[in-house]
């Protein structure tokens, strides 16, 4: 188990380096001069450009710039003292600053990440609830009315785009019936005192209901289908017959023997899909004007703000890698065949 853990962590670090390097090179090659952005765009003065280029290290080779960038991300780096001895140097990891304004990108991420996390994890809980209940029920009663209704839902769910669903929901639940708010985000821990914005857990959930639904429908549909198929397949396994031959009641057969096995692949899928969902969050955040990572990316793209985009990409990469690591470990914990091999 320990060796498995070490192996997974080493893989995660390697992947992180590869992904960030590729991202870094792409931005390096983009026809956009950060120095010009900082010096006021088209009217930039030559003296300013030279000064800023040197300050940001833009005249250095890409590998050096990348090393500097990664170095700033680490909480601890090797540092040479006057006698050329290596001493550990502790620092506050940082994603750097925005070129045009000099604003801290760490703050940008800190503000946007909780919004996206609320959307993605809340949505995941919702799609798991729908996927498990409808999927299992459909598998136990194939071809029943509920099963057929579930399959219609699946078809709609996988076919409809979140933007379209979002607009439809906004129109009916918001504009027409005034049931749910259709824009903005309420901070879970309460809004700043004098901001006049809504805050607190109840407001948070109230503002997130439509985004959650919009975000979760696609995955709920996929999970209903996957869980239904897995449970149906597992119901036909020999060991399920063995459990029945032992005299186990159906409820016990279902929970102890069928679901434990049928949901193993779902654990893996969930980990990957939450990562994929981060991408899908862009649409939902766009429709409901949630100030999350997705919206940050859209705004930065329009402003050609490369530093912010890069910060979001790097942050998302780290989140996904850490998340996948957790899922891998969880999977090893629930499946003895992986744990012991």
């Amino acid at each position, binding site marked *: 188990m320990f060796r498995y853990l070490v192996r997974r962590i080493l893989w995660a670090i390697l992947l992180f380096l590869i992904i960030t390097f590729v991202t870094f090179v792409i931005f390096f090659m983009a026809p956009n001069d950060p120095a010009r952005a900082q010096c006021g765009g088209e009217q930039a003065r030559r003296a300013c450009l030279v000064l800023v280029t040197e300050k940001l290290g833009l005249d250095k080779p890409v590998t050096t710039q990348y090393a500097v960038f990664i170095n700033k991300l680490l909480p601890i780096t090797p540092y040479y003292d006057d006698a050329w001895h290596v001493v550990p140097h502790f620092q506050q990891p940082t994603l750097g600053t925005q070129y045009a304004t000099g604003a801290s990108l760490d703050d940008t991420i800190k503000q946007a990440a909780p919004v996206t996390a609320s959307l993605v994890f809340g949505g995941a809980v919702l799609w798991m609830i729908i996927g498990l209940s409808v999927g299992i029920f459909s598998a136990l009663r194939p071809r029943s009315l509920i099963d057929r209704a579930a399959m219609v839902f699946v078809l709609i769910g996988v076919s409809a785009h979140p933007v379209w669903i979002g607009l439809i929901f906004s129109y009916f639940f918001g504009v027409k019936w005034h049931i749910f708010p259709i824009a903005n985000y309420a901070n879970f821990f309460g809004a700043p005192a004098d901001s006049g914005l809504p805050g607190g857990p109840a407001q948070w959930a109230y503002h997130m209901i439509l985004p959650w639904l919009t975000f979760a429908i696609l995955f709920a549909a996929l999970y209903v289908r996957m869980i239904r198929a897995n449970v149906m397949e597992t119901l036909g396994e020999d060991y399920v017959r063995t459990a029945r031959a032992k005299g186990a009641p159906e409820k016990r057969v279902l929970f102890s023997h069928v679901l434990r*096995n049928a949901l193993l692949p779902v654990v893996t899928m969930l980990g990957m899909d939450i990562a994929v969902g981060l991408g899908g969050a862009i649409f939902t955040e766009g429709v409901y004007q949630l100030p999350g990572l997705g919206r940050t990316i859209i705004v930065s793209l329009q402003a050609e703000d490369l530093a912010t985009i890069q910060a979001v990409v790097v942050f998302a990469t780290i989140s996904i890698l850490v998340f996948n690591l957790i899922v891998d470990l969880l999977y090893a914990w629930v499946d*003895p065949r992986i744990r012991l091999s």
Partner: protein
Amino acid sequence: MALLEVKDLRTSFRTEDGIVKAVDGVTFSVEKGQTLGIVGESGSGKSVTCLTIMGLNSRKSAISSGEALWKGKNLLTAKPSELRGIRGDEMSMIFQDPMTSLNPVHTIGKQLVEAVQLHRDVTTRVARARALELLKAVGIPKAQERIDDYPHQFSGGMRQRVMIAMALINDPDLLIADEPTTALDVTTQAQILALMKRLQEEFGSAIIMITHDLGVVAETADEVIVMYAAEVVEQANVNDLFNRPQHPYTWGLMGSLPRLEIDTDRLVQIPGQPPSLLRPPKGCRFHPRCPYVMNVCRTEDPPLVPSERDPAHLQACHLDQDTKDREATKLIEVTMAGAG
């Protein structure tokens, strides 16, 4: 009273192509401590017969009729809860493929303990002690250490031993073994059969041994049923069956046993394929493959009746007794010559 009495058992399955009669009027009984062998090709209905008795067929697609009297109680009409009380306790079953018959996510100890606690109100510690006792009885080396292992850490033969331990853990009166050695290699087969024989003496359970292997039957069974296309074609005491087989299908089975002593390039086989149970042939179901076929065979299904020589020997064939005796003797002589 017989332990299990099956009368005119019929099971059909609804499929998309129509109704398949998988078991079509099977009658037999099992006495206490006796071993009944059921022989037949794949799809002859031997497994379905036993799954029907256990109530393990899919409830949606299977239709059963007839009677399966367990200690006088009809299992086919029993409530699911009653049936659950009998399954795994008084009557248990082991299956063909030990590789897939154990749940991969639970330790074998947990699965054995579950089998005990489903029927006995005992603490986990008591159930675990019982599990350990059974694992030792079926010959798992270092049972004490291995009880907390997962199925994938065992070989096929060892898993079948675990299955046997699980089946016997509540001291059942009847053990149904559905081709318990088919998926195992030959040496392991012999070990498992010897183990079952020994445990039968120890536990006094009756056994229904389902197999397509006449060798297994000869080694284990007291009474034998030969099934073909959902019907019983012959039933006799094991010695009578091997010494005086009365049905051309049984002759075919015995003739096709490979023999070490006879030098040959080809294995003998029964020509043709078993019939589709969607539309079984008219008359005797074996007639399209029977070398002795007569006109009457094509129109009339022969009933299962006592043979003229021996009332305890049941057979379903239109051939006259002299022909049967002659062919049986010929077959036995060839076999004996080979053995001699």
